[in-house]
Every structure is written in C-alpha cells, then in structure tokens.
C-alpha cells in the first residue's frame, strides 16, 4: 500500500530541488533529482521495500567493500574530470539499495525532541540562506556579495590537502548514512 507521507515531503522537496537546478542550467542534476523523487515514491510501496531489503541482505558485504573502494579512489582522482564523474555514477546503485532499519526509542524524550528541533532549525536556516544567496546570484547581482557554500569552498577544492580534508568526512558520513545500524 502506498503511504501518503511518501508522496508529500521528500518528493515535493526533490522536485523543488530539480526546479532550482534547472534555474542554473544544471539539467543533468535536475534529472537526477526527479529520478530520486520517483524512487522515494517507489520506496513507499511495500513490495518494492521488501525487494530492496532482500537485495541488501544478500549483497551487504560486497557493497561495503565496493563503497570503501570507490569513495577512497576519489582521494586520488582530480576534481571535475571524467574518472571522478564515473566514480559517482558507480555509487548510484548503492543509494537505491537501502533497507528499513529499526527506529531507536530514546529514554529521554524531552532531550530527544529538543535536539531534533534545534538541528531542524539549523538545517532550515542554512537552507534558506543558501537558497536566498543562490536566487540573488542568478538574478545577475554580483555573486560575491551573496556567496553560496559552493562558491566559498571552490578555492579549497582546488588544493589537494583542502580536498582531502573535505573528502574524508564526506566518506565517513556517507558510510554512516548507508550502513548505520541500531546498536540497542
């Protein structure tokens, strides 16, 4: 059965993202966002969810090794080159192979709720600042006056040490998102 929540938050957000990407003429990114929105809807179907869970159980070890090898290879590949692009494309199947996890029941509900809303407020503030900067920059105003994170990080990405400093936490957090499990 298709649940309503799967048809609202994430697909709406991703379709909005696709629109924003098309504003900066990044049509490939826009198509990827639409593709992700479709997968979010599919994941809400019980039969599709069970199929992904089955694949994840069967292929878990292979994907752990694959993930580490491909993401680690990015440390040695130049930014904005074809090998870097293909490394990211190779990771796409991993993103589809996600399985449901048990949610953790926290003992301290008040601390949990407080933490949830603080992080949510920070994420929304960041998102609004980034979106505002982006929209102002595409209207033709000097983009240095309203820099996006992308613009600020560009000089760092073009140095090996700076890039490694960004890549290592990127690999670590990505691994957590894909493979974290309930330890309780």
């Amino acid at each position: 059965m298709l649940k309503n929540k799967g048809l609202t938050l994430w697909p709406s957000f991703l379709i909005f993202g696709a629109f924003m990407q098309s504003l900066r003429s990044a049509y490939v990114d826009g198509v990827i966002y639409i593709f992700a929105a479709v997968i979010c809807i599919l994941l809400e179907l019980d039969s599709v969810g069970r199929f992904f869970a089955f694949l994840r159980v069967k292929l878990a070890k292979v994907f752990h090794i694959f993930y580490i090898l491909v993401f680690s290879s990015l440390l040695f590949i130049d930014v904005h080159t074809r090998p870097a692009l293909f490394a990211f494309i190779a990771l796409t199947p991993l993103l589809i192979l996600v399985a449901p996890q048990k949610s953790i029941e926290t003992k301290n509900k008040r601390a949990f709720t407080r933490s949830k809303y603080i992080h949510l407020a920070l994420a929304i503030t960041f998102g609004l600042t980034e979106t505002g900067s982006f929209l102002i920059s595409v209207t033709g105003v000097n983009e240095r006056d309203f820099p996006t994170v992308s613009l600020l990080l560009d000089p760092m990405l073009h140095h090996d040490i700076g890039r490694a400093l960004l890549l290592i936490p990127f690999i670590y957090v990505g691994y957590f998102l894909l493979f974290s499990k309930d330890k309780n």
Partner: protein
Amino acid sequence: MEHVCIGIYVLIMATAVGVLILAKFRPQIIAPFSVVMNHVLGNKTNRFALTFFWWWIGWHFMGSPWPVKMD
C-alpha cells in the same frame, strides 16, 4: 553583504558545534546528533533521500556537472 552572508554560515556552524559539544557532555539536556539521526534513518525513504543529498553534495563538489573537463 558578503561578510553578513559568510557571518550567517559561520554562526550556523558555531551553533552546530556548540550543540554537539553540549550533547556530548550533557546528553540529558540535548540528545546526541547520532541518536536523532538513527531515529530519522529508521525510515527507508528518509534514509534514501538523505543519502541521495549527501551523494549529490559529493557529486557537486568533487565530481562534476556537465560539461566534463577533458584531460
């Protein structure tokens, strides 16, 4: 305006670091970020969407949008 914009980013980061430190030493006041994330990732659509965004950030910063530079 550039400094105001950068200031907002720095303020967000500083607050996030402050919250992380507080959660580390006073988990009874603010639950650690990992607890919140594990709860959020309990739903497979959340997990997919968040992993997708993380992948896209990597793609955007360290991969490449078209056209790809030919070396």
